[in-house]
């Protein structure tokens, strides 16, 4: 009875609200969202269409675009630097992203039990995230320097001969990946927030059933925060496919003439070189579309997997 009454009164209120949406209101709404509409048209929709067109042309900024059909894409498939930069980017993504999520999870689990001191540690973990990526690229060169860097110094204490992280092609990417983990702080905070939403009674019940802490972690905690972990996985994959600043700072630009930087040639760096250093804007546009397609495909696969594996609390997300 009461619930029926409530429902009807709700329905009445709802219809009142609906009728209150006048033509005047809807005009106001369009005015409020107009900045985004204009920006979307100029800085997203048009560039998207135009870069699609440019990818079918030869364009050097000075002369008018010259239509060449699919030539850029054909050239791209045969360009060894494309294969190399794509390979470097995949290497980086496949190792960096899972490592990033795992480290974030581990640190968040540590923080969760830190009690009153967690604020202090959280600040310490997060601070590196405030460092400008250019400065991170420079710190990479200094800390990972093969002869005088701190990293190899510490390895030396334990009797290890550290590699030449910044010059040996086999060690350039591992160095970049390790350095990137320095800025894991914001992901730690995200995981920590998710951990705090896991209901205590689940852990209590499992404890009564005799589950040890590892079993509780694998069977309760990780499934319960699976949505957040997948969110981090997807966002970081998209970001790491476009990784640019740290590697560009450390290994590219006008300064570096002393050693080969092929090992650090990521896709976004090669795209930037093609577009803005060699002024091959058509070719760079084709590269951008290929990247777009790859990122879309990977994201779709990840989303499908997340639907299959992730348990969403409440189910309304």
């Amino acid at each position, binding site marked *: 009875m009461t619930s029926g009454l409530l429902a009807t009164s709700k329905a009445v209120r709802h219809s009142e609200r609906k009728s209150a949406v006048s033509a005047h*209101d*809807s005009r*106001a*709404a369009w005015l*409020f*969202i107009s*900045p*985004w509409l204009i920006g979307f048209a*100029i*800085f997203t929709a*048009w*560039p998207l269409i135009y*870069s699609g067109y*440019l990818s079918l042309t030869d364009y050097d*900024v000075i002369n008018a675009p010259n239509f060449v059909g699919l030539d850029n894409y054909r050239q791209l498939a045969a360009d060894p630097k494309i294969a190399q930069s794509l390979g470097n980017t995949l290497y980086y993504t496949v190792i960096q992203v899972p490592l990033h999520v795992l480290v974030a999870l581990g640190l968040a689990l540590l923080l969760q*039990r*830190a009690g009153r001191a967690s604020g202090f*540690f959280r600040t310490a973990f*997060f*601070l590196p995230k*405030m*460092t*400008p*990526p*250019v*400065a991170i*690229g*420079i*710190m990479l060169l*200094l800390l990972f320097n093969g002869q005088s860097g*701190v990293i190899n*110094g510490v390895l030396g204490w334990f009797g290890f001969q550290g590699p030449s992280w910044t010059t040996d092609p086999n060690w350039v990417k591992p160095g970049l990946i390790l350095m990137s983990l*320095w800025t894991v702080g914001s992901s730690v905070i*995200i995981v920590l*927030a998710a951990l705090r939403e896991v209901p205590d009674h689940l852990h209590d019940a499992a404890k009564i*059933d005799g589950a040890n802490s590892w*079993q509780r972690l694998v*069977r309760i905690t*990780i*499934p319960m925060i699976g949505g*957040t972990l997948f*969110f*981090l996985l997807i966002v970081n994959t*998209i970001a790491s496919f*476009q990784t640019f600043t740290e590697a560009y*700072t450390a290994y590219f*630009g006008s*300064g*570096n003439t002393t050693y080969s930087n092929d090992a650090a040639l990521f896709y976004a760096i090669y795209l*930037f070189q093609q*577009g*803005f250093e060699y002024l091959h*804007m058509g070719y*760079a*546009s084709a590269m951008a579309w290929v*990247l*777009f397609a790859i990122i879309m495909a990977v994201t779709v696969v990840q989303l499908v997997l997340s639907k299959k*594996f992730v*348990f*969403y609390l409440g189910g309304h997300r």
Partner: protein
Amino acid sequence: MTAVEGTPPAASTPLVAPVAEPLPSSPATPAAGAKAAQGRQRRRPVASWLGVTLRWLALLAFSLLFVYPFLWLVSASFKPRSEVFDNRLIPRTFTFDNYLQVWREAPLGVWMLNTVIVTVLAALTVTISSAMVAWGFAYFQFRGRKALFGLVVATMMLPGAVTLIPTFLIWKSLGMVGTLTPLWAGNLFGSAFYIFLLRQFFLGLPRELFEAAKIDGANNWTIFVRLALPLCKPAIILTLLFEFQAAWTDLMRALVYLRDSSDFTVPRGLKALLDRYGFGGEWHWEIVVTASVITTVPMIVLFFLGQRHFVGGIAGTGTKG
């Protein structure tokens, strides 16, 4: 989305002995159960004491790992050229010369001023425009709202590389390449991430308040500026802080749009210093190190000013998405 309640994670099953098997199954014998419980109780204090110690050691070790590079950098900036790489935390010879030298060698004041102009304008414009758009999506009901908002969210996934070149050509045709304008003016039109964030916040405000104000004769603009914006202050501050950081640290756009050293922002200038004094042959790493400190310190200050907002805001992005 679909909730697959009760479905245990497929992976990892063989690794772990089934723990929480059917709950109601009674223990084999009551005595055995009690004995097991006792054993656990006896073991616990030692195990947890060890666990706590290990946990604290790990926390301290990781904190050191995260903070040490800063300390190294700051310390190196006070060392003379020959000692920059000696990896001592406390400089053997303490000198302030590097700071004076950076100031002489590079137009650091101009770079700072340029960066402040860009960051302030970028943060202010993106906050105002994104708040307007977010309010439009949160408060009003109009045809096509859902589809349009879906489009806003979709643009977040678009890689910047796809729009980079045409956007450059737009600014070039306006004669703005080589000026600071392209570094912030795009923010006049709002940004998808902030629109999403602010809309979430607006949706949490009590609607009755705005309906009441409307009945009292307030117009839409007044409701937005006088009521909605003040109520949404934490989210506004968060947007300002996030964008301030993003604009301060951005290198890509500075590389694309800035030509002359006198137009550089701090990150672009720092890259130029690295190219010249770092591996550019001159090998004056003390200058590069010092300039890195100068570039980073404002962000550290920003963090301590807005720590609460940063942490709270970032925590929200993962769970409210």
